């Protein structure tokens, strides 16, 4: 600076800026005052901004800024109070003041509306004028403002002017004789407008919007805090209160109409309306609040009732597949409740009801048949003994049918709900799990669900898939698997499935091995490795057996005398632990099974194979299951006219044993039942069944029984029926009730259940030991919980059962009690 000064002399500014002319405060103020009034009356175009600015500038430089500030404030206040306020109160008609009260007559509303609009537009006009003028004033007084706001003791002139408007206009009384302020009138008028719009009238939205903006522009406090906007402080609460009342009434009204889809329609319409209103008429910030009010008052309080509405509610929609209705209900419900409880509750109830219907239908179908079967039995008994047996058969297959129908029905229902879920519930995860839970609930209500499902698979794998494409099979199996997912007692299902599978495999009834394998891999995916292990083993046995049979044949071809009349043998070697052998034979448990006595040729064959097999695998034991096998035999019948008729008969192994007895019998002779049994040692139950199919079934009557009746009694006698005839040379003689997989009768079911329980017992024990081995010691409740968790994928264990198992393990010194409180167990290594 010093160097600079040395070079150039700094020009002293002319004092002209401040003291050219009229440099006393009063004259400057008078000039300004005149100009301000011009501005207020919108005559600014003649004024020079520079001149006014300079005046204000000078005053400020004279240190009189505060005086200027106060003077302006006073001037503007006076202006508002005297001129503007009067103008506005003139537009307030008596109808606007009168209708402050709640009473509101329809015929008044038009008048009130017109008055309201006039009032609002006056309000809006004055507000806009005020804003513009104050903007100009502020601009002119900018220099003053800078000085004033520098010491921060006072708000800027603009906000002061706004506050003046608030005090002198809004807070002024509408009438000298009443205590209602202009603001009150404004508020009630706006609310009235909104009310009109909600009732479907058109209103002047921009007008209302302007007034709302005014309220938004004004603050309750001097500090102009965002939260003290007049709109937020006064108007919005009032508006929300009004909305609450309105939607309460609306909810009542809609419930009285009692149409759920209408409710949803109107509710979504209201939501859209409120959104629009906030966008175009009120403030955006109100949207969430008013929508919340709407959600609470209109939806939350009524949704339960709406969903339950008789005749139009969720149930009705589900039954009639009204996807649109459900979708809107879903959306409405989703607004207030992320879990959609109301909807889900009703839907679950409906699913369970429908499911129970299906259960009941299946049960009555089965029972009805049983009843009618009994009736037939009673009726027919006197005349013919054959019929009851048949009807029993029919009943059993009827049960099978009803089981399959049950599964089909459930799958159909599941498909329907899946569709609804996808289209109406926007594939909502929560809803899906709710649907699944409901399905699982009612499926597990049916105690026979596992059996039914297995029967369903059986039926389809035997017959159903024969003329279907791969994809169809795939979906079919997938559907079945879906149901399997719902079933809690998966071990029960496994038992049934194994039993049915065993029959399919041994009797070669399966329509497609590929489908079987596909099924297994699907199950594996669904329930895990452990589940399918044994089933897979069954398949392995079958393959091994095939190889074995082939190699045995080769062995015989090499070693035996080729001339000898050989009997061909197909063997299936079954690993006894993997196959449900007990459930396949129908012996009474107490009846110790003696090996069946075969005819000599077969016995030779059997011994030869045993030698061969045991030679290959040391230390194994072969048990022959004659009740599972079939034999092709060639039979010759000596007709009475001397002709000889040949047939190739496919009979069960027992049947073969029986028939071969008659080979050695001279014509016309007979065996009694007991004789046959004595010679073959076939268990009574199997023998009866085989004799029935050989001597009673009309189409395959190879033997003749005396006396003729449906039942086989121990004293009956059997003859060869030389008159046996059949249009085909090859005749398949099925064993009564042996071939197909059917629904179990009560005793069988009891048996299965007993077995399952036994198996469950050991599974539980295994689980307990596994857990304890790992933990060494564990509190009782924790142990139980862990056992339940481990077994959940297979079945739902009974807690009592688990407790008993723990007791039994303690007794057997696997576990010990460590402490009593809380009860704790330790693992005994």
């Amino acid at each position, binding site marked *: 600076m010093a160097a*600079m*000064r040395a*070079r*150039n*002399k*700094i*020009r*002293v*500014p*002319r004092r*002209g*800026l401040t003291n*050219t002319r009229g440099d006393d405060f009063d004259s400057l103020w008078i000039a300004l005052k005149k100009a301000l009034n011009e501005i207020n009356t*919108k005559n*600014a*175009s*003649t*004024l*020079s*901004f*520079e001149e*006014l*600015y*300079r005046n204000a*500038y000078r005053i400020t430089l004279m240190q009189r800024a505060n005086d200027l500030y106060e003077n302006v404030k006073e001037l503007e206040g006076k202006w508002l109070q005297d001129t503007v306020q009067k103008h506005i109160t003139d537009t307030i008609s008596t109808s606007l003041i009168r209708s402050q009260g709640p009473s509101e007559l329809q015929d008044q509303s038009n008048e009130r509306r017109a008055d309201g609009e006039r009032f609002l537009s006056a309000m809006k006009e004055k507000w806009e004028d005020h804003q*513009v003028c104050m*903007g*100009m004033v502020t*601009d*002119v007084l*900018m*220099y003053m403002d*800078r000085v004033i706001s520098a010491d921060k003791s006072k708000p800027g002139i603009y906000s002061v002017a706004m506050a003046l408007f608030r005090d002198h206009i809004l807070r002024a009384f509408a009438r000298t004789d009443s205590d209602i302020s202009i603001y009150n009138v404004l508020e009630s008028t706006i609310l009235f407008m909104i009310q009109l719009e909600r009732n479907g009238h058109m209103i002047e939205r921009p007008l209302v919007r302007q007034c709302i903006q005014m309220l938004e522009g004004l603050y309750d406090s001097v500090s102009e805090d965002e939260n003290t906007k007049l709109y937020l402080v006064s108007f919005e609460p009032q508006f929300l209160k009004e909305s609450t009342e309105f939607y309460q009434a609306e909810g009542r009204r809609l419930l009285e109409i009692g149409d759920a889809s209408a409710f949803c329609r109107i509710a979504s319409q209201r939501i859209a309306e409120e959104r629009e209103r906030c966008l175009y008429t009120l403030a955006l910030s109100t949207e969430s609040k008013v929508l919340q009010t709407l959600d609470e008052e209109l939806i939350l309080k009524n949704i339960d009732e709406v969903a339950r509405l008789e005749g139009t509610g969720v149930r009705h929609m589900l039954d009639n597949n009204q996807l649109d209705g459900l979708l809107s209900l879903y959306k409405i419900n989703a607004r207030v409740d992320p879990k959609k409880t109301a909807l889900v509750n009703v839907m679950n109830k409906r699913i369970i009801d429908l499911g129970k219907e299906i259960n009941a239908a299946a049960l009555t179908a089965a029972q009805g048949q049983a009843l009618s079967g009994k009736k037939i039995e009673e009726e027919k008994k006197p005349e013919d003994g054959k019929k009851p047996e048949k009807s029993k058969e029919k009943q059993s297959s009827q049960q099978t049918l009803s089981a399959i129908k049950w599964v089909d029905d459930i799958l159909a229902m599941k498909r329907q709900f899946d569709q609804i879920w996808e289209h109406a519930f926007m594939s909502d995860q929560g809803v899906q799990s709710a649907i699944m839970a409901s399905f699982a609930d009612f499926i597990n209500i049916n105690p026979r669900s596992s059996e039914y499902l297995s029967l369903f698979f059986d039926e389809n794998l035997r017959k159903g898939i024969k003329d279907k494409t791969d994809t169809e099979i795939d979906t079919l199996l997938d559907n079945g698997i879906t149901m399997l997912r719902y079933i809690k007692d998966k071990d029960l299902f496994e038992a049934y499935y194994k039993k049915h599978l065993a029959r399919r495999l041994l009797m070669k009834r399966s329509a497609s091995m590929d489908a079987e394998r596909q099924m297994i891999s699907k199950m594996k995916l669904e329930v895990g490795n452990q589940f399918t292990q044994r089933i897979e083993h069954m398949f392995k046995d079958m393959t091994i057996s095939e190889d074995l049979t082939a190699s045995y044949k080769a062995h015989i071809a090499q070693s035996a005398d080729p001339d000898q009349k050989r009997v061909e043998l197909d063997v299936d070697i079954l690993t006894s632990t993997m196959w449900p052998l007990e459930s396949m034979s129908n012996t009474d448990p107490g009846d110790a099974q003696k090996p069946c006595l075969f005819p000599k040729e077969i016995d030779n064959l059997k011994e030869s194979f045993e030698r061969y097999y045991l030679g290959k695998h040391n230390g194994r034991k072969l048990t022959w299951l004659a009740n599972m096998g079939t034999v092709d035999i060639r039979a010759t019948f000596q007709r009475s006219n001397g002709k000889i008729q040949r047939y190739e008969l496919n009979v069960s192994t027992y049947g073969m044993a029986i028939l071969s007895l008659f080979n050695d019998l001279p014509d016309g002779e007979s065996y009694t039942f007991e004789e046959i049994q004595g010679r073959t040692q076939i268990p009574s139950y199997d023998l009866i069944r085989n004799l029935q199919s050989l001597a009673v079934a009309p189409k395959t009557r190879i033997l003749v029984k005396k006396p003729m009746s449906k039942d086989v009694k121990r004293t009956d006698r059997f003859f060869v029926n030389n008159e046996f005839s059949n249009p085909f040379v090859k005749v398949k003689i099925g064993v009564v009730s042996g071939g197909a997989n059917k629904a179990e009768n009560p005793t069988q079911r009891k048996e299965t259940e007993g077995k399952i329980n036994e198996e469950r017992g050991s599974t539980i024990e295994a689980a307990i030991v596994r857990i304890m081995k790992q933990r060494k010691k564990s509190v009782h409740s924790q142990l139980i919980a862990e056992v339940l968790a481990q077994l959940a994928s297979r079945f739902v264990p009974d807690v009592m059962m688990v407790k008993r198992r723990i007791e039994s393990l303690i007794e057997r010194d696997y576990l010990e009690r460590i402490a009593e409180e809380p009860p704790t167990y330790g693992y005994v290594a």
Partner: protein
Amino acid sequence: MESTSEPGYVTLASGDGFEFILPRSAACVSGTIRRMLDPNSKFAEALTGYCVFDSFSGLVLEKVCEYLLYNEKHKSSKNVADMDIPSDICLELLIAADYLDV
């Protein structure tokens, strides 16, 4: 009043009769001029686009205009070299700057 025909430009006039025409955007760097020309307020300057500053000499106003353009030009860049201010009018410039709110 040539500037009225060209809305993008405004005229600033000094007390001793010099006129400077510069882009409106540059002129509005000054808070005072911006308010003066605000089209919403209907002052004479806003209508005509012609502003008279009685109290400034042409010399000072020229420097002010130079600064306004200089400011506009370098608005978005950083590390701009200081403008050369002749020291003889620096006090007058200071007052003008205060007055014009720049």
